[in-house]
């Protein structure tokens, strides 16, 4: 039993295991790249793929390859990776401590000659070396006829901190995973949001804080009506008015509301021939990008197509090479949406019932279309805004982990450790040195040290 534990510990301490695990994790991530992942598709797209390639998808699903980043294999590899990390680092602390605190006095010149850099300086002594090295911020330890100097003595501990800071990422990642709440909400202008979420994911632990706000204003900005370059959403909250937008979420405590989409929110009224109001609704239609959307009122289906700027919608700008003209001509992949700025709004509406078209026409604000003895009036228009809502704890641990990793990496590779040793023998000063990471580049630094000692009077 003892032998088995010793073997396992030896395996977990092994740097070869670290390397194998990094290769395995990279291979798994590569699989995630070439095999379509469920999370990256809409449920409809995924179902469509599953229907078309049933056997293949079933096979991939069986091995967890369509959700490879959360598959037992990946989680197992991560688990081993962190275990290996902790065991390696903990096992290294005692030897590192000894190395960092030891004053490694040289005993004979033969040991100096074995070091990467070595020079013999005639007629110079310990005091000369001390003043030069002290000026270069070396810690200097002299004895009668030999010395030891070290710069950035505790730098090797940076390696431990670097690797252990991955644990902050792990802990932060686990906490965010178990407390993660994701939802969506569509709120129209002047509508108050008070917690009606379309929940995408409930937290496994903990609750979602309550919040309420009213959308006061939505103002998209387009580059000459073509490219959406900004979006301003004004919220009325308990803390006062907040101006948010794309890249500027509304954050309240650990809750964040990310703006993901906007659309138009028209008020339609259906009246009878006598002018009596039969029905009215403020709708949230997704028609800004040229899509057709439908809604139902009083058992009728209304197919809508929206013109944000009806007056100039059909005008062309052939031969114009200005930026806005070229933007309009550019393909959809270049972030173009058709005439987004609402300057002359109009709806083209087709009214249907049981497949039969009962009426159709173009409506501008306060205009109407007659159908089946009734009329539908386009009374008013405003926007709706869609939020992606997120909440989790432990995010600060993740960010701290990232920060520590970066800071320690910089410190470790800039302030790496240098050791210089010297012995007086035969009236000459024998000096040798070595650096941790860049021994050949250290040769210039060492040559400079030797030169300065040589020049001392």
């Amino acid at each position, binding site marked *: 039993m003892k032998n088995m534990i010793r073997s396992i510990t030896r395996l977990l301490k092994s740097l070869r295991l670290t390397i194998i695990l990094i290769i395995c994790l990279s291979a798994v991530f590569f699989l995630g790249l070439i095999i379509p992942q469920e999370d990256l598709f809409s449920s409809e797209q995924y179902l469509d793929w599953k229907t078309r390639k049933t056997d293949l998808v079933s096979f991939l699903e069986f091995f967890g390859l369509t959700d490879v980043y959360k598959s037992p294999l990946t989680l197992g590899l991560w688990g081993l990776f962190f275990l290996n990390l902790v065991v390696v680092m903990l096992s290294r602390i005692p030897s590192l401590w000894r190395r960092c605190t030891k004053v490694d006095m040289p005993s004979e010149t033969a040991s100096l000659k074995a070091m990467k850099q070595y020079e013999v300086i005639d007629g110079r002594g310990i005091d000369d070396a001390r003043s030069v090295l002290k000026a270069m911020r070396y810690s200097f330890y002299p004895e009668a006829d030999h010395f030891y100097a070290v710069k950035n003595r505790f730098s090797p501990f940076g390696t431990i901190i670097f690797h252990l800071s991955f644990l902050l990422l792990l802990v932060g990642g686990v906490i965010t995973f178990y407390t993660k709440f994701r939802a969506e909400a569509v709120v129209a202008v002047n509508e108050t949001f008070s917690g009606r979420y379309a929940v995408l994911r409930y937290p496994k632990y903990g609750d979602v804080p309550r919040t309420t706000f009213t959308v006061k204003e939505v103002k998209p900005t387009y580059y000459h009506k073509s490219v959406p370059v900004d979006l301003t959403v004004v919220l009325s909250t308990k803390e006062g008015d907040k101006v948010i937008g794309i*890249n500027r979420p509304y954050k309240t405590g650990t809750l964040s509301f990310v703006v993901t989409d906007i659309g138009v929110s028209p008020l339609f009224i259906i009246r009878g021939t006598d002018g009596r109001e039969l029905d009215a609704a403020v709708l949230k239609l997704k028609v800004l990008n040229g899509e057709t959307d439908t809604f139902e009122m009083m058992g009728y289906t209304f197919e809508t197509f929206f013109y944000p700027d009806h007056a100039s919608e059909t005008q062309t700008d052939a031969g114009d090479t200005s930026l806005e003209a070229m933007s309009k001509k550019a393909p959809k992949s270049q972030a173009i949406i058709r005439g987004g700025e609402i300057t002359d709004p109009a709806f083209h509406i087709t009214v249907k019932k049981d497949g039969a078209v009962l009426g159709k026409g173009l409506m501008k604000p306060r205009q109407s279309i007659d159908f089946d003895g009734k009329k539908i009036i386009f009374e008013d228009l405003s926007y709706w805004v869609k939020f992606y809502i997120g909440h989790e704890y432990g995010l600060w641990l993740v960010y701290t982990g990232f920060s520590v990793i970066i800071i320690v990496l910089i410190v470790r590779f800039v302030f790496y450790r240098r050791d210089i040793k010297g012995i007086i023998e035969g009236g000459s000063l024998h000096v040798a040195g070595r650096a941790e990471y860049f021994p050949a580049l250290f040769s210039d630094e060492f040559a400079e040290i030797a030169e300065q000692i040589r020049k001392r009077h």
Partner: protein
Amino acid sequence: MAPLESVFVWITIFLYGIISALYIYSIVFRNEKVLGRAGYLVGVAFILHTAGILARYAAIGNLPVASDYETGLGGSWVVVAFTLYVLLRHKSLRAVGVGTIPFSLLLLGFGLMREPVLVPMTASVRSFWLYIHVFFAWLAFGAYAVAAGLGIIYLLKEKHPDKEFYAKFPDFPKLDDLMFKYVVFGFVTDAVMIASGAIWAKDLWGNYWSWDPVETWSLVTWLIYGLAIHLRLTMGWKGRKMARLVIFAISGMVITYFGINFFVKTSLHFFQAWQEM
């Protein structure tokens, strides 16, 4: 492209083509004179490349950091900037351009093929974090490219130990150290790129990490370079092994930037209109 930008960029790409040919000629025929002149031409091409970027800036009002074309334009500029830095600092490393200049040519060429239309920055990429994210990505890209260039020099020098032409390159330990230094620099800046991307992603998409293909592949690239550092420090991989590894590892960076399109059809990093966010 803006008219002036178009002129500068096309002259630049033409010059990079000539410089690449000169570098290859100088290495194949071991002609030191040509090698030196290629270095001067790199400086000229760099000035024109910078002028192209400035012309685009004047036309759209922001630095080229968003689309595939802009990434190619900016990314290749940083690689050439690193090359120039190495050329000015280490005269014996004049051959580093044999790897980096053809690489920049390919980057810029790839960008030009990806519809370099003039569009202002869309709302989704208008963020302070974008500049930090892209700036550090370029630094990492440039450093990794130079490390790969040094790897090529190392292998060439090793293959022809008796030729006088290669004797003028730095000695092996120095080349090895420099290669490692650029890998380390790339590794640190790559880490900043990933971290700043995560912070930005939280504000833009609501999640700091989505296992998006670009995110995942940048992590894989970081891990590969982390592995290279481990192999050197703990298992003594130096010299030839290290040179081969850094030449291979640059493929990870290339896939992250340009190859993802060939593997996947969906990525949060394909910035389109609002509906794509």
